[in-house]
């Protein structure tokens, strides 16, 4: 974390970094992230015979089979927490439609040129997809947890749905990780220290930046 | 079994299981072979697969046999004589009978004496007071004393099989044309003319068209190239008219020419692995081993006995083998029983044999106990409480004994009756002695199956706990009784003291020793005999049971043979085990051939005359008696032929089967004014326990039965079998259940006038309501017998109801087999 040491002292002092996520936010995020990764790996071991070796990460197939649903429960709790904590900020607003139209430009340039608030429409979409798909995973997972309670037709449909939902989640997850680590420098700190640079904030979330700057004065 | 003897001369299944493969049609009635005789029944399926045989099932219940049959007719319980009568009538009216056979091998042409009559349900000679028949009018017309000369030419057969001189009353009069209005054939027609298909529908509840279709199918076997098979079990015997029902089946088969032929016969399926062996060896009170009659008062000497008991030769062509050789069998039996104490001087100890005046059936024995005339009973493999009938009455009866000894591998309702549910043990004074006996798997011995095959088996498991073989228990009892008589004397100790106990260890004879004793030996040489033809009436031979003579010879234990060669391809398997008599596989097999000794159907030869002797199965006939001699095929009857008409005292209730309603019936008899069986014996006080005809309090017909998962009461101790059929249940029609608000799988209570049971309701389409009489709907209910208050194992231990709490205390008119298969009840949701 460097600051411009050469900055003139006449400048109005203001924080070089802006707080984006509280400690609780970050705990929830990483809880969800870790459980998701565990679920993804164990799920892959369950779904793809060639990846059965992944069960070794979980102490063997039996343990993995027993653990997967319980990890799923923990994951669901985290997702619910995210729902409670962030839903307000994730509401779609005017301007989100325009962002969506500019998704091609965003993809090419990493920037939409719009007056984006705390979250852009892509982030909001990802958020709601995670919420909804998590719910689907939960609902389709319960019959797989206690399969003997339902007929085998039910279980087959559950497997199909569970797997389709998993694919959506994994797709989103790859993009999410790629964008927040490799593609957009300055993003990762939001979930580590909880802070982002003004430069990052002003560029990616100008409206949110102004709100934060206003608060800080 | 007495019924088969009345028709054919021997009381046993005429054919054998393996022979079912040779049948073209099966009429299965009062039996459920798919469930109760699955191993033998497979041969019916083979016949169907190989020769397109038709399987017809007639039963009150749609069972697993019905499920696998080609057609099924639901019949009202206990109306089997009406059914067979209808079939007889159909066969006669449509001339489906096998005419050549009927002329040659039945008594169709025998002329019946003029004073024989049948009027409105009763035969001549009925005594209203005593409820018995004087059977003297049920006889043939006889030729005057010195009728036709007998053929004195010596037959090449053994002396024993030579016809005897004409008997006292003279030979029977026979009209070969069958036209004489008093001949059996004409009387038969007359008697069964009333048994129309319409009447069958009214009485049995079988729609006419279905009945005719069935009759045409089975009637089609009345030809030389077709053979039909009547298969029955206790569904026919467990009625007051049980004997007559089976007689009726015999008449059908004689008319169709199906007796004595491979694939034919009247085939009694015995309910127990060894019930045939039990019967052969005198489990019934009225016989000695080998169906020799028990002497009666008035037969003080053997001469009296031999004068009154053996059948008389009624035709010159009758071999009358049994009647002729009776003395040899009796004397040899007495030699086996009393050994050296049986001498020519003392009439071979004939006087030692009891000569009971009364009846000693098990119903009577328990009635004696009830009335305080009996001190104790030994139950060996029997338990009156569950066997019934009227279990409450049974329990009361044995509760009046001083002691009751039980020989059984497991505790039974007999051994535990004093602490049964609802019984105060302190109020029961009977001392119960439980003697644990080994079960069948822990001892050697032979089972005689329904088809008369005696098959030796070997001990497979060590005896459990302190259990002992029955051999040991009974020998010990005998030795101790003898010691007591020797030490303390008694009224008449001789019969007990004279009993031979000539075993290596008299206190523990082996099964093989007993088997050898049953076979018999030449007392002069000490060698085992190989055939009953060698038995003598001069005290030089012995046999424990003459029909088993040949089962354990000098060549060894014939019952232990396991040869699988079948040179004729007919499935006789003469080197597999041994079947009585003389290792014959099909009884009366001379009837499988025509007058010239040619098989009726050459593709299915029983025996045939090859010019010098009879070959094929072991001939049930003198092996070298030529067709020209024209000797009768039924060698055990005085007539030499099969009996459509059973004369004289062969039955207690009539020469022709006649339909009567059951003791408890929903409707009156449609055939005559005689509703119920006229000579069924009513014990004192039982009438009050019977519902009346059409009793509104007990409107439904119930029948009892067994299921394949269990064997009587003993498999309640086998966990896997309890698992496979866990609970006492009651089968009832969907329609009745709907009326009464009974749910499938719910609880139902069934009451008769004698008791009540409660179990799981199995509401099923398989119990069909029947339309009888003038549009009356009869509901029938099925109640299996396997459960009791010692039911279940381990966690499934369960005090269940007993079917026989409901059954009436009345038996067959001839042998007092209880009427388990049809009685009245009411039902309600429990």
């Amino acid at each position, binding site marked *: 974390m460097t600051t411009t040491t050469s900055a003139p002292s006449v400048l109005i002092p203001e924080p070089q970094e802006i707080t984006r996520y509280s400690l609780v936010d970050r705990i929830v995020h990483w809880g969800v992230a870790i459980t998701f990764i565990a679920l993804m790996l164990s799920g892959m071991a369950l779904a793809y015979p*060639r990846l059965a070796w992944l069960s070794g990460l979980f102490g063997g*197939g039996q343990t993995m089979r027993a653990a997967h649903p319980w990890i799923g429960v923990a994951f669901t709790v985290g997702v619910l927490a995210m729902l409670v904590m962030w839903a307000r900020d994730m509401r779609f607003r005017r301007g989100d439609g325009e962002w969506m139209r500019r998704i091609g430009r965003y993809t090419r340039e990493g920037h939409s040129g719009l007056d984006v608030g705390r979250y852009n429409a892509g982030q909001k979409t990802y958020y709601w997809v995670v919420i909804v798909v998590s719910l689907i995973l939960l609902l389709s997972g319960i019959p797989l947890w206690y399969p003997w309670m339902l007929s085998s037709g039910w279980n087959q449909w559950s497997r199909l749905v569970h797997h389709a939902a998993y694919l959506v989640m994994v797709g989103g997850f790859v993009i999410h990780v790629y964008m927040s680590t490799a593609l957009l420098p300055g993003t990762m700190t939001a979930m580590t220290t909880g802070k982002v640079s003004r430069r990052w904030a002003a560029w990616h979330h100008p409206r949110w930046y102004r709100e934060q700057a206003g608060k800080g004065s | 079994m007495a019924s088969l003897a009345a028709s054919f001369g021997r009381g046993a299944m005429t054919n054998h299981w393996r022979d079912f493969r040779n049948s073209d049609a099966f009429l299965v009635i009062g039996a459920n072979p798919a469930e109760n005789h699955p191993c033998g029944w*497979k041969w019916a399926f083979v016949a169907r697969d190989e020769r397109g045989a038709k399987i017809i099932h007639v039963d009150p219940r749609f069972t697993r046999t019905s499920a696998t049959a080609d057609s099924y007719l639901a019949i009202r319980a206990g109306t089997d004589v009406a059914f067979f009568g209808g079939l007889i009538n159909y066969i006669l009216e449509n001339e489906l009978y096998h005419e050549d056979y009927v002329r040659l091998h039945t008594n169709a042409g025998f002329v019946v004496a003029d004073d024989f009559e049948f009027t409105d349900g009763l035969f001549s000679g009925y005594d209203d007071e005593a409820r018995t028949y004087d059977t003297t009018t049920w006889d043939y017309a006889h030729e005057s004393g010195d009728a036709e000369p007998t053929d004195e030419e010596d037959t090449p057969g053994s002396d024993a099989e030579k016809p005897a001189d004409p008997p006292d009353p003279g030979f029977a009069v026979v009209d070969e044309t069958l036209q004489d209005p008093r001949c059996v054939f004409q009387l038969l027609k007359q008697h069964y003319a009333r048994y129309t298909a319409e009447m069958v529908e009214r009485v049995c509840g079988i729609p006419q068209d279905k009945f005719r279709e069935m009759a045409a199918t089975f009637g089609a076997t009345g030809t030389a190239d077709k053979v039909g098979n009547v298969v029955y079990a206790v569904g026919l015997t467990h009625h007051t008219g049980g004997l007559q029902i089976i007689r009726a089946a015999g008449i059908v088969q004689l008319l169709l020419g199906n007796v004595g032929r491979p694939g034919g016969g009247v085939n009694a399926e015995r309910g127990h692995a060894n019930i045939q062996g039990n019967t052969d060896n005198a489990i019934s009170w009225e016989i000695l081993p080998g169906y020799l009659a028990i002497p009666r008062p008035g037969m003080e000497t053997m001469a009296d006995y031999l004068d009154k008991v053996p059948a008389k030769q009624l035709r010159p062509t009758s071999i009358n083998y049994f009647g002729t050789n009776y003395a040899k069998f009796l004397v040899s039996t007495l030699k086996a029983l009393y050994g050296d104490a049986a001498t020519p001087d003392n009439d071979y100890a004939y006087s030692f044999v009891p000569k009971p005046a009364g009846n000693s059936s098990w119903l009577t024995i328990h009635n004696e106990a009830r009335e305080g005339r009996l001190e104790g009973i030994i139950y060996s493999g029997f338990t009156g409480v569950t066997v019934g009938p009227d279990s409450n009455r049974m329990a009361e009866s044995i509760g009046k004994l001083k002691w009751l000894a039980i020989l059984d591998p497991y505790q039974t309702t007999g051994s535990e009756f004093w602490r049964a549910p609802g019984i105060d043990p302190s109020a029961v004074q009977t001392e119960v002695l439980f003697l644990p006996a080994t079960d069948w798997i822990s001892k050697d011995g032979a089972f005689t199956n329904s088809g008369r095959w005696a098959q030796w088996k070997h001990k497979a498991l060590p005896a459990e706990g302190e259990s002992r073989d029955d051999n040991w228990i009974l020998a010990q009892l005998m030795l101790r009784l003898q010691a007591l008589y020797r030490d303390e004397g008694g009224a008449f100790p001789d019969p007990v003291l004279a009993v031979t106990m000539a075993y290596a260890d008299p206190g523990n004879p082996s099964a093989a020793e007993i088997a050898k004793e049953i076979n018999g030996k030449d007392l002069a040489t000490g060698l085992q005999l190989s055939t009953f033809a060698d038995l003598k009436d001069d005290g030089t031979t012995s046999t424990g049971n003459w029909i088993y003579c040949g089962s354990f010879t000098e060549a060894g234990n014939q019952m232990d043979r396991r040869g699988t060669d079948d040179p004729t391809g007919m499935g006789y398997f003469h080197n597999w085990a041994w079947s009585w008599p003389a290792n014959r596989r099909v009884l009366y097999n001379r009837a499988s051939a025509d007058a010239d000794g040619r098989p009726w159907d050459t593709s299915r030869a029983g025996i045939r005359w090859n010019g010098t002797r009879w070959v094929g199965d072991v001939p049930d006939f003198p092996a070298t008696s030529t067709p020209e001699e024209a000797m009768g095929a039924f060698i055990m009857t005085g007539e030499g032929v099969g009996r459509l008409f059973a004369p004289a005292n062969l039955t207690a209730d009539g020469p022709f089967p006649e339909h009567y309603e059951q003791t408890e019936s929903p409707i009156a008899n449609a055939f005559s004014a005689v509703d119920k069986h006229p000579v069924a014996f009513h014990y004192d006080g039982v009438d009050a326990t019977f519902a009346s005809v059409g009793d509104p309090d007990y409107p439904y017909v119930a029948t009892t039965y067994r299921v394949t998962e269990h064997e009587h009461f003993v498999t309640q101790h086998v966990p896997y079998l309890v698992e496979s059929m866990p609970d006492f249940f009651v089968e009832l029609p969907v329609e009745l259940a709907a009326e009464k608000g009974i749910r499938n799988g719910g609880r139902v209570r069934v009451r008769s006038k004698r008791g009540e049971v409660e179990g799981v309701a199995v509401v099923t389409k398989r119990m069909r309501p029947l339309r009888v009489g003038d549009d009356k709907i009869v509901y029938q209910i099925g109640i299996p017998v396997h459960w009791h208050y010692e039911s279940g194992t381990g966690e499934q231990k369960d005090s269940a109801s007993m079917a026989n709490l409901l059954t009436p205390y009345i038996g067959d008119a001839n042998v007092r087999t209880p009427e388990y298969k049809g009685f009245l009840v009411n039902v309600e949701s429990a």
Partner: protein
Amino acid sequence: MSTELGLNVRRKSATPSSGTNIRRDGLEVSKIVDIDLCIGCKACEVACKEWNDLAVDETFNFGSYQSHEDLTPATWDLMRFNEVDLPNGDLAWLIRKDSCLHCDEPGCLLACPAPGAIVQYENGIVDFDQSKCIGCQYCISGCPFDIPRFDSETKKVYKCTMCVDRVANSLEPACVKSCPTGAIKYGSRHDMITYGEEKVAKLQERGFANATLYNPSGVGGVHMMYVVPRGEMLGEYGLPGDPDVRGNTSLLGLLRNLRGIGAIATWAGLIGVGLYWLRTGRKFPPPENIAVADAIALGHETEPPAPAPDAPSAGPRDEGDET
């Protein structure tokens, strides 16, 4: 169950290339249940429990001759009873031995994620190795005949082994040996098919126009076939008319396709992202002063004029500043 008994393995669950067959013996065995001969006596049911020494289930009569309402972890063979009215007013009491059909394409094995928990031998027998079972019960959902049963005590799944331990020692399965009427036959698959076809022809002669040999191709054929006299009543017998684990439109097929698509999509996505990154590299924001100025400018465009926050003056560009 847990041993391979010296038999050749055709394949194992979740274990690609698991076949071992180098030997000559390629004989496939099969049972065939001739329903025409079956009397529903349950001897096979009991023999199965006897031979495999299975626990006694506590049963109760639920208004039927059927011993258990359904298969259980300790009951691998169950006689099912069903009363059906026939068009002519008669009654049929359909009785069927229900146990594993040993499919040639076993849906259970295809669905199983636990390596080696389900083994298909070269002779056609499909067996479970409970020591490797992870209790996921995918085999249950994979089975078109609803055969495997999960035991909540051991957390494993159980089913008929076709007495593989007897078969490996040249004995027939226990159910076959116990059958009193010969309704359950056992032999080479070829012989059993021949028997079945001949029997079906006989049944058709006897008037069962729809008699059929049940050997469904959707599961590659089975190693316990049925001769069904009333072929029009497969549903009433409890047999699926057209079980399918191979077709792309079956549930299992859909799942298989989805898995394939998922695998491709996952790889494609990862590679695509990698290529994208190689081409475009990282997207740094402009220097702070420009970014802030932009942000403020955007604020003026979209919001009513407000006291502008004091923007920091343009500082030195600091290309590396991303934290």
